């Protein structure tokens, strides 16, 4: 009987405790939102646009052993047509007999049209912290930017396009590695976060439509543009998996699945991220 007041006190303390924690959560979230808004207030403050411009110049400059520009590169809407191409990628390309996303297709054009060596291009394709996005990534930023304002509209008609989307979904849910992680482990619930970083529920079209179109994105914490292929490599790095190869079927399939899930979502690349 004597224990009772103690128990009541403990219960009160527990309630007070959880409301403090709750208020703290709300306060933290408010601070984060303010930061995001400040980043978004002036769209021209996005340094990623400089990389998009650099990408455009690279696209149009004769380069590589064959000294030609990429203006004959077919991104799916005909040779040289960049406007709106990103919105329909990944797609099946007859010449390569493969489904390709923007980066994989640019890589293919650099190899086939300009004569670059593929092995060299995929060796260290992504920038380290503080380094600007590499040439291929800058061109991918340009290509994505040329679909900015459009909605994701993957065709998903060719059997190989359908297969890529299905494979992407399987890979999204496939758990492996010493941590047993999968994409779904972090991206299959609403409103969760790692430390303070919010996690989009990517298997949910409503949330995928909001965020997928922001990539490639300028990342404030690493001061460079990060492309979607780079973003996926980074996820696998955290999953304790080896280095994901740019242009691999796995990366293309995951992008095919994400873009299909984000169908109808507006492209706003380059986005601005933490």
């Amino acid at each position, binding site marked *: 009987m004597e224990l009772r007041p103690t128990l009541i006190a403990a219960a009160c303390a527990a309630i007070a405790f959880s409301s403090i924690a709750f208020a703290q959560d709300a306060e933290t979230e408010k601070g984060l939102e303010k930061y995001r808004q400040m980043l978004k207030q002036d769209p021209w403050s996005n340094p990623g646009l400089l990389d998009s411009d650099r990408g455009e110049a690279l696209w149009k400059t004769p380069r590589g052993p064959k000294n030609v520009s990429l203006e004959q590169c077919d991104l799916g809407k005909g040779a040289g047509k960049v406007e709106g191409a990103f919105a329909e990628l990944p797609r099946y390309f007859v010449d390569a007999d493969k489904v390709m996303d923007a980066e994989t297709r640019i890589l293919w054009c650099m190899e086939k049209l300009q004569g670059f060596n593929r092995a060299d291009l995929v060796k260290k394709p992504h920038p380290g912290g503080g380094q600007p996005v590499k040439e291929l990534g800058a061109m991918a930023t340009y290509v994505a930017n040329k679909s900015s304002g459009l909605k994701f509209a993957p065709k998903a008609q060719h059997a190989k396009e359908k297969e890529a989307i299905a494979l992407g979904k399987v890979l999204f849910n*496939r758990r*492996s590695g010493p*941590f047993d992680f999968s994409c*779904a482990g972090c991206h299959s619930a609403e409103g969760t976060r*790692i430390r303070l970083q919010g*996690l989009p529920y990517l298997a949910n079209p409503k949330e995928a439509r909001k965020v997928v179109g922001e990539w490639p994105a300028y990342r404030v914490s690493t001061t460079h543009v990060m492309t979607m292929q780079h973003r996926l490599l980074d996820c696998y790095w955290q999953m304790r*998996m080896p280095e994901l*190869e740019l242009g691999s*079927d796995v990366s293309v399939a995951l992008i095919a699945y994400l873009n299909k899930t984000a169908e109808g979502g507006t492209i706003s690349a380059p986005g601005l991220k933490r």
Partner: protein
Amino acid sequence: MRKTSIIIVAIGLAGTTAALAQQKPVVDPARVDAAVKAAFPTAPADWQARLVPDETMKQCSAHGNSPPKAISGAIQKREMATIQYPADGKFLGDWKNGEKLAQSGYGLRFTDYPPRQVNGGNCYACHQLTKQEVSYGTVGPSLLGYGKLHEFKQADVKAAYEKIYNSHATFPCSFMPRFGANKVLTIEQIKDIVALLMSPESSVNK
């Protein structure tokens, strides 16, 4: 009468076809394995195992991480068998070191070789633990006041050890790594994290 039975048979057949279509995997598993193997060409020989899910992970992925009862029971049994207990029978280590391990996400990434420090448990990535640390994730439940809520019971101390050593022994298809079973953390490190959760002196319970 006859017409009705024909319709019923037809519906029955359609049902069977739908069920068969559901059972057949959309993508050939061999195709998935081959794609994964090709996507990580720089993986050294001793990393190949990371590319392939073990039986438990296969079952979890196949059932969207909520397997039917029979499979979930089999997973629990299999994973429980992997748990190694401290030789001295003591589960409570040093909670202050447990706090350090809870903060650190170091270890097993391809940039972490050769190891420059001990592996961490990275508990804060997903869990709230103490009032002092406001940068915590919410993928897992809050563990604030965990020991106090469990009244520091000895049975719950052991249960906490088992959950950290192999989460699937308690919660089949949990998203938490099998820290002990997959050799992410040592038995001593797990004891330190158990102490962080279950010691009355720990800041988790203050």
